[in-house]
């Protein structure tokens, strides 16, 4: 059974590669394709999530259990066992470093896992593309969305536990930023995922190289450390560079929302400033990804 790949009845299908100028209008077309095929996207995300825990006894509980456990570990490690304390932090903020790392880990995993898994998604679903004429651009989106959903579930667990048990002050009105952050994060990850998945079709080495790149990138991003002079005295000369990293802004935006920008010394910039820094990266990645993908996707069926 075959479906025709996004073409209108009676429309000429021309030969030749897609020219770069045609590719530039790709972002708009991509948004329309996604809107038209949203049922397909939702079904794909659902299947992706279900597949991860299929065959397990606890099934759908795992996306909730994992962050719960992780949070417990970070909380106890950094408030009870490790002596790391930020100077002058009041007693009820002593979980700061644990919460900081917990959120950083979840944001990084949500972002990086989506992109790295997406890098092989076209190759793995070769039959879908070859035989079903499945709209290939939806596959990396499904992967990115699936890991974003996992991340949001984890944040939901965090909100219930941390705010509910008063381990951390309730975020309040700042939560209104969440939709904006989610949209920008998805656009950013999707743009990179489009590039990575398309590149892997032509050169399988791309996926392996991407794994390395992301490891380096993770350490360059303040996931497990705090880029603050008071905590890491040697960081000072690097700060201007570190702050230009888009994932730096992404992690900070999430933390600023969920941690209410406390402790103040760790949050030199406001949420809107972080998002203003991240938004151009996010839109840029999406446009570049959509353009690149549109330019090469006609060859997928011959290469996967």
């Amino acid at each position, binding site marked *: 059974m075959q479906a025709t790949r996004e073409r209108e009845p*009676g429309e000429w299908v021309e030969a030749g590669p897609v020219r770069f100028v045609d590719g530039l209008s790709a972002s708009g077309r991509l948004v329309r394709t996604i809107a038209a095929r949203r049922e397909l996207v939702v079904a794909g995300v659902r299947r992706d999530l279900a597949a991860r825990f299929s065959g397990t006894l606890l099934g759908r509980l795992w996306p909730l259990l994992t962050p719960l456990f992780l949070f417990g570990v970070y909380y106890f490690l950094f408030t009870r066992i490790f002596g790391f304390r930020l100077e002058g932090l009041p007693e009820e903020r002593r979980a700061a470093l644990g919460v900081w790392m917990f959120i950083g880990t979840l944001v990084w995993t949500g972002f990086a896992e989506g992109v790295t898994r997406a890098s092989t998604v076209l190759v793995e679903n070769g039959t879908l593309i070859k035989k079903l*004429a499945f709209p290939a651009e939806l596959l990396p989106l499904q992967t990115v969305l699936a890991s974003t959903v996992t991340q949001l579930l984890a944040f939901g667990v965090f909100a219930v536990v941390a705010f509910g048990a008063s381990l951390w002050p309730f975020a309040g009105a700042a939560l209104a930023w969440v939709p904006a952050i989610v949209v920008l994060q998805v656009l950013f990850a999707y743009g990179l995922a489009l590039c990575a998945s398309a590149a892997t079709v*032509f050169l399988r080495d791309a996926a392996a190289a991407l794994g390395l790149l992301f490891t380096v990138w993770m350490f360059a991003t303040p996931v497990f450390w705090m880029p603050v002079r008071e905590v890491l005295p040697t960081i000072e000369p690097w700060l201007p560079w570190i702050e230009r990293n888009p994932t730096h802004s992404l992690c900070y935006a999430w933390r600023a929302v969920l941690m209410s920008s406390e402790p103040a010394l760790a949050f030199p910039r406001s949420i809107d400033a972080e998002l203003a820094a991240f938004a151009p990266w996010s839109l840029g990645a999406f446009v570049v990804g959509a353009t690149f993908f549109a330019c090469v996707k006609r060859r997928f069926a011959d290469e996967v």
Partner: protein
Amino acid sequence: MGAAAIEIERLGKAYRRYASGVDRGLELASFGSVRRHREFWALRGVTATLARGEAFGLVGGNGAGKSTLLKLLAGTTFPSEGRFRVAGRLGALLELGAGFHLDLSGRENLQLAGALLGLSRAELRAKEGEILDFAEIGEFVDAPVRTYSTGMAVRLSFALATAIDPDVLIIDEVLAVGDLYFQKKCIDRVLDFKRRGKTILLCSHSLYDVRNLCERALWLEHGVVRGLGDSVSVTNDYATFQREHSDASLTSSAPSTPPAGLPRVLAARVVRRTDGAEVHEIEAGESIEVRVWWENSDPERHALQLGLGFLRQDRTLVAAAATHLDGVTVDARSGAAVLEFDALPLLAGQFTVLVVLFDGDGVHRHHEFTLQEPLTVRARTKELGLVRLPHRWRFAPLEAPPAR
């Protein structure tokens, strides 16, 4: 009506071949400015127009480019040259149900395919019953497609492709699979499509199906068009070509020459009676004669009978004539025998012409002589079988069932 259902203009598809991964990497790294691939044209310069409501056949050998053409039209791969367009909704059945996602159940596959085709969930639910009825896969509907038999997968994909009621239906060799009961069901559905004015593109190795179902046909060979026209003449041409190429070794084998002194055939040829010209290809119903030159150095010792037969490819004797059966005696030392056929009733096909010299009882064979060139018979009609039997129809009112 009037408008074309499928228009194809100078369509071509080249696949890239790289000698090694290094070549591929180099070409990618240079963004295509360094060319390190060889092109292989699976299809080139195909131009054709399918009218709305037409059934169109596609024939050709393996690797002729048929599947590439169908894949292009179905949108699973893109052209390297030329262009095409398809008017209306297209349903394609390629590669026998291989389009399913094997890990998903039949029902999930239906949903996926439905979503791909842009059917809403409500529309799909409305059609699901009909699809499952037609496919007859029973409780397997919730089992992964991996566990299906080939027949079940084909049935499901056929049911789905036709249930969406496409305006243009592309079928690649599916009619040949499945049991006879299901084949009939499929053909009935295809015929129903045809009746409702839908366009059908049928690719088949069965020239019978192509002749029978299609008005016109396209013959591809090595990616280029060898013939395009009414299905009877295109399949005739294709059949001729196929036989010439598949049988080259068989017909060129030299006739066994008997030892000196025994009766032998010197030569034989088929001649058209209207103009006396030697022919290798005739129209069904033409009058021909077969001329046989023979010698028998010692007629006293070796009595002789002369036989002639038309054989099919598989050596089945289709028709024959022999002197001892017809009560004719052959007693000269040498001569030319002429066997005349008025309105030869052989139908389309290729026939080996075999001349045999028997002994007097018509049992022992002195010499078997096969004509170098087989005789190709071309038919302008859709008559079936190997020979045309003289026949007529009569109709009478039904009175009583025949008594036992």
